[in-house]
């Protein structure tokens, strides 16, 4: 089991979700974040005060996948999130020791297998 953590541009989120969907990734969690990297900084002014905004809006995806799913997941994100301009973001793959599905208490593999109307969790 791995946890794929990806930081992407907000305007690319829809494309990424679609690509993941096509790659049969169903479960994921996203968070609004702000990131700093090599992007140009914006300058804002409020009355006499000038402010440098170093952080840009990004979206963080967190996707728990079984090992053989890591590669397709990463490829889907790389394909859909890239624009070629500085600021496209990063993907981190973290090791996971255990996963639970809260609804059933199922563990590991079974926990991230999507529910099928009548299917029993395989493996």
């Amino acid at each position, binding site marked *: 089991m791995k946890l794929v953590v990806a930081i992407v541009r907000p*305007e690319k989120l*829809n494309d990424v979700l679609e690509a993941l969907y096509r790659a049969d990734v169903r479960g994921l969690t996203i968070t609004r974040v*702000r990131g*700093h990297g090599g992007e140009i900084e*914006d*300058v*804002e*002014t*409020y009355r006499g*005060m*000038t*402010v*440098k*905004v*170093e*952080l840009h809006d990004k979206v963080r995806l967190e996707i728990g996948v079984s090992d053989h799913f890591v590669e397709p997941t990463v490829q889907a994100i790389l394909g859909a999130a890239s624009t070629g301009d500085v600021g496209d973001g990063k993907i981190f793959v973290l090791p996971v020791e255990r996963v639970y599905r809260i609804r059933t208490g199922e563990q590991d593999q079974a926990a991230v297998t999507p529910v099928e109307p009548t299917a029993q969790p395989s493996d």
Partner: protein
Amino acid sequence: MASDLAAVNGADTAWMLVATAMVLFMTPALGFFYGGMVRSKNTLNTLMMSFVALGFVGVAWALAGYSLAFGNASGPWVGGFTNALLRGVGLEAHGTIPHVLFMAYQATFAIITAALISGAIVERMRFGAYIAFITAWSLLVYAPIAHWVWGGGWLMKLGALDFAGGTVVHVNAAAAAFVAAILIGPRKDYARQALVPHDVPYTLLGAGVLWFGWFGFNAGSALGANASAGLAFANTLLAPVGTLSAWTLLDLTRARKATAVGAATAIVVGLVAITPAAGFVSPILALVLGAAAAFPSYFAILYRARTRLDDSLDVCAAHGVGGITGALLTGVLAQKIWNNAADGALFGNIAQLWYQLAAVAATIVYSGAMTWVILKVLAAVTSLRATHREEGVGLDVTQHGEEAYSRLEGAILIHERRRVPR
């Protein structure tokens, strides 16, 4: 200067003071009505499109606009420069109120009409170009059309009925919005992503304040605290009441959900539709007119969303279709026993419908064509649109150097050379 102050009527002045303030209040309200419907990264830009009209269109009005619309040298097409720089606009009575007050009242109309257009071009127009556009537009399009209908021009003489500006304000702004949306082009994400209102309560707030202000707009157009104002007032209450109910029922029928954006839209559509009719039809027919006006605008919005026309906040469907519906229904439902002016088609005077149609058509043609000219000329000297990068980042940061909602992370203070007085 103050020659015949005697003719100034206190009660009429009292009402028109308030009515003018109410109409002025509509422009910030419009900013919120529109601002709630865009994405959060364009909130300030959308608000500022309304607020800046309060500045530049106001100046243009004082310098020349008022004179072009209401100046004495009145031919059929445009007023003269008699009152340019507000020369000759003093404390003397104009009708029964001080002339300066009449000028101020009309200023608020010019301002909001220009601001209305912005709904079609939000989230992508360069702000500098926008300022130039609406300032020129208020002088070249609004002022002449106001002259035609209210300043003694040809539509007035023809006998077209427009109590408070259904044609001058709403159809006019919508025609300009249509042309502007086409020339400026759709937002880069239009029809590709879900462009969802970022703050619906703002839209409802805007609608609430617009309704409040619209009483000044319609009942104020009686220019006095008289029975005609009372009628216009009651109708400005009852028409949106009808539209809101009909729209909610349409929503419930179609999808079992009564949308809040729909309710806000319905209020505005009802107000637009009753604008030309306010002092001309009976209250119960105003209710009917309002309810009837829900239908064309409702379906126009559904239809527009499937086209490539990115009239982003549906100025055409709300103000154009609503305004035309109102203008024509005025020609149908007007009753001489209520207005002392003219009957509509329903009461035997079919000709009235033709006058109404003429006013609508002339406005659409002139406004559309002149808007096209103004924008083409502007496009020749500057760029009308923000760049794709700017559109992506949002116009708040790129045009205004600000964010609407800051939560403070990662904003670093830049110390400029600091002196150490105090």
